[in-house]
């Protein structure tokens, strides 16, 4: 019996979880045990070795930890957003229901499980199924908490919703399984920020799954900020389902973790649904950052646009795999995908693989990837104007990232991330 198995049996005895969930967790664990952790022979994990995760025994995080108001204000960019704070995987604070905008509901996975709600029965692990991947199976088996955000039809909350997952010293040596569910009903519109941040340099694992349902004509902007501790592991999966005329925009910003893998998957299931996937990863030292995106064009007339940029310094290793599948019915698909990388050192490495599979005949799809270094001529030009070598490198690096940051529509977040990019390269 594995460590993980022991934990689930233990939970079954002590918790009041509904039987269907206990059964789902048991079968998810069985799924994981039959496949194990992915190896580099697995095409989807060809450039990412998860042995550092597989070989470690993670325990449970300390609960009841509290994060100071100061730290929270910093993490929240000083903004008055609807904010839920989870510390080491457990809820610390949430906005009072009566303070929320009309049509907006924010609850937690733990409370939905406890009340065995309809929503959890119908939707938990339905998009991101245990069979879809080893880490998702583990998440299904162990997920204890997370946010459940519901936007009623036609609702447009006045402020963004910020889900903050903080790790502090209590997370040392622990695995935290977070599971979020977002529902954007017909013609609702909102911005959700999912932040993973650390207060220290602890070693821990975040295994996060977020399932997103975007109904007809709904528009959701979803920012995921992965700023885990430099020694942590982060595996996160976003699985999105888009109905007709919906728009889902994802931005993945990843600067943290020793090893991270972010999956962003969407299915364009309804006519004229639009997906936008952008991202910026920026790593240094011996960090490993891996993104896999998948856009399933199932319905016709759907545009999807994707721009991922990477800045790699030190001996870091980046991986990008962007898949676009155009199903036979998905005529008039307009797909555009690019991944551009900037290597700042001789030892940094990037493996990039944009992938197109097209089974329809009337589509417009482009994809491309670039890998480059700082332009020597531009560096000289700047130096010849009195700008120091380090400042010139910093400006050019920032300039490289500028166009993807420009796509962030949430102004305070854009400014904060721009500042973070500039700061990162200040000597």
């Amino acid at each position, binding site marked *: 019996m594995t460590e993980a198995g022991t934990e689930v049996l233990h939970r079954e005895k002590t918790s009041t979880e509904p039987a269907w969930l206990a059964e789902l967790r048991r079968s998810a664990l069985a799924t994981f045990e039959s496949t194990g952790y992915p190896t580099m022979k697995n095409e989807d994990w060809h450039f990412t070795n998860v042995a550092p995760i597989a070989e470690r025994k993670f325990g449970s995080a300390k609960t009841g930890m509290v994060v100071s108001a100061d730290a929270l204000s910093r993490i929240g960019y000083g903004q008055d957003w609807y904010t839920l704070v989870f510390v080491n995987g457990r809820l610390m604070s949430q906005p009072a229901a009566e303070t929320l905008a009309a049509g907006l509901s924010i609850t937690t996975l733990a409370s939905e499980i406890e009340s065995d709600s309809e929503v959890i029965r119908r939707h938990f692990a339905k998009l991101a199924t245990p069979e879809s991947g080893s880490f998702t199976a583990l998440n299904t088996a162990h997920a204890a908490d997370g946010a459940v955000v519901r936007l009623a039809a036609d609702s447009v909350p006045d402020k963004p919703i910020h889900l903050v997952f903080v790790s502090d010293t209590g997370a040392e040596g622990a695995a935290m399984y977070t599971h979020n569910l977002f529902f954007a009903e017909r013609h609702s519109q909102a911005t959700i920020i999912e932040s993973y941040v650390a207060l220290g340099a602890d070693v821990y694992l975040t295994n996060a799954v977020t399932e997103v349902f975007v109904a007809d004509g709904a528009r959701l902007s979803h920012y995921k900020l992965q700023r885990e501790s430099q020694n942590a592991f982060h595996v996160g999966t976003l699985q999105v389902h888009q109905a007709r005329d919906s728009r889902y925009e994802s931005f993945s910003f990843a600067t943290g973790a020793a090893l991270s893998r972010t999956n962003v998957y969407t299915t364009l299931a309804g006519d004229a649904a639009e997906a936008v996937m952008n991202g910026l990863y920026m790593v240094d030292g011996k960090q490993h950052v891996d993104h896999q995106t998948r856009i399933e064009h199932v319905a016709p007339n759907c545009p999807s646009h994707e721009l991922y940029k990477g800045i790699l310094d030190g001996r870091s290793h980046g991986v990008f795999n962007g898949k676009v599948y155009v199903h036979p019915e998905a005529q008039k698909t307009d797909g555009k995908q690019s991944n551009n990388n900037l290597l700042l050192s001789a030892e940094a490495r990037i493996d990039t693989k944009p992938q197109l599979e097209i089974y329809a005949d009337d589509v417009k799809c482009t994809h491309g990837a670039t890998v480059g270094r700082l332009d020597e001529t531009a560096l*000289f030009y*700047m*130096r*010849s104007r009195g700008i120091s070598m380090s400042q010139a490198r910093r400006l050019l690096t920032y300039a490289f990232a*500028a166009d993807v940051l420009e796509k962030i529509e949430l102004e305070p977040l854009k400014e904060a991330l721009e500042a973070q990019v500039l700061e990162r390269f200040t000597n």
Partner: protein
Amino acid sequence: MLEIKNLHANIGDKEILKGIDLTVNAGEIHAVMGPNGSGKSTLAQVLAGHPAYEVTEGTVTYDGRNLLEMDPEVRAQEGIFLAFQYPIEIPGVTNAYFLRSAYNEIRKAKGMPELDPLEFLDLMEEKTKIVEMDQAMMNRSVNTGFSGGEKKRNEILQMAVLEPRLAILDETDSGLDIDALKVVSNGVNALRRPDNATIVVTHYQRLLNYIVPDRVHVLAQGRIVKSGGKELALELEERGYDWIPGAAA
């Protein structure tokens, strides 16, 4: 101000400059002319400190100091400015941010206080007039999508802001129509002071109608083969270079 003695420079294994001697004093304008491939642009780039060129022999003294030991940014901070023949595009960095960074680094090097964005805006309002440039250009990425004329004006604008002591204009006139040429020349003349100097590298005499040189030098095959007053430029325009000993291809 500037004393070049027996300057030799290579790019890769190829020797381009083969012993240049040139002295420029404060208040003077020197024109360096010559056929294509004579080494004019190399001389300009070497003075600015382009890392691709290797100086193999000779000395360059600037205000009594060894210029060749200085990094390009130090040269700029000490008052040397090169207007590029082909100004570089820098997508993602606005003209205003770029120029303010440069200006402030030079101020810092001189121990002067830096300007904040608002103060800098006032300065730009004044300086853009010198080159008749629309202020809106300041918010565009450096040289990105600029026409040839706009790029050259932008070089002169940078020069106007950075106020160099020694400006080197590398074929700033190439590809300019007559209006742009006048704007650029007026800019250069407006910035002329008794304590600064200018080296104008050009292929054509036309520019020298507007920027009148004190001395004209003919560079051929990596050496200065003839020097004279401004009338030499007119003679070159009429007779070409072939009559000068050492200049024939």
